[in-house]
């Protein structure tokens, strides 16, 4: 199987047939195309990078297991991401039961002040102490200044998990609203509300920066 330049994958029926036939190159292509985004999503649910790696691993194992039974009612991408989200949720529930408070504060940087507002009634992130400090700037070729990236990362980390996952899928990973609704099994209206709250929160956190790049008055 050829490499897919520019990140364009072949149509789903081709992908599914190749996977069922044991085409390793196709599997590797999907792994390389989606795993980074899946890791970021997994981090919205679990507290460490290690756990995220395990979540992504388990999700792909489930994909391998399930490909023969895939019915094509959604796209392959949606199906894989649904598996990822379910795996991450289960893992997160396990973590919540297992993580003692002492270790929460060992891990935390300013955990006591970093509690996200649960004001909108959504559940707080299971791993609210986690900061996205792992977002490391790479040199000059990045258009976005590292300070701005840090602000965004902090803002994302402060969101309730549902909002964070929606904004991550939509704006960071570039999924369509239809894909997000399917992946998370939520309505269009609900998706839009969660997304707008999340964007408003990030915008509020970036206010100072945004004023400097705003329209000249």
């Amino acid at each position, binding site marked *: 199987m050829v490499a897919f330049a520019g990140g364009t994958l072949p149509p789903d029926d081709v992908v599914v047939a190749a996977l069922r036939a044991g085409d390793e190159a196709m599997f590797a292509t999907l792994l390389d195309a989606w795993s980074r985004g899946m890791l970021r999503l997994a981090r919205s649910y679990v507290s460490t990078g290690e756990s995220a*790696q395990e979540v*992504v691993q388990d999700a792909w194992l489930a994909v391998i297991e399930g490909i023969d039974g895939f019915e094509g009612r959604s796209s392959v991408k949606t199906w894989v991401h649904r598996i990822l989200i379910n795996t991450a949720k289960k893992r997160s529930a396990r973590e919540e039961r297992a993580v003692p408070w002492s270790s929460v504060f060992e891990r935390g940087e300013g955990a006591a002040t970093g509690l996200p507002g649960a004001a909108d009634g959504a559940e707080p992130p299971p791993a609210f102490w986690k900061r*996205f400090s792992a977002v490391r700037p790479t040199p000059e070729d990045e258009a976005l200044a590292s300070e701005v990236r840090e602000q965004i990362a902090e803002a994302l980390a402060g969101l309730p998990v549902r909002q964070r996952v929606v904004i991550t899928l939509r*704006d960071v990973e570039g999924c369509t*609203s239809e894909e997000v609704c399917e992946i998370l099994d939520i309505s*269009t209206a609900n998706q839009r*509300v969660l997304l707008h709250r999340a964007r408003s929160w*990030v*915008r509020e956190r970036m206010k100072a920066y945004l004023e400097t790049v705003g329209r000249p008055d």
Partner: protein
Amino acid sequence: MKRFSCGEVVELTPAYLDDGLDEPVRLLLEEHLVCCRECGRDLDQFRTVIGALGALPPEPPEGLREDVRDRLMSAFRGRKGH
């Protein structure tokens, strides 16, 4: 012809950013944006936020760990004896 108030524009912004407005409503909203600086700036700020989110680098930068990737490749290989 109807003109939108700033409040209505704020109300419609989520759907507008989501390409979820019908053509006539979208046009009315855009007409408002042409003459209302404040609403225009709000939308610009949302667009900047969306653009900035889309420009975030991968996290973690190194992606899937090599040993995890190897394990998955061999799990896939083991699925079909070929």
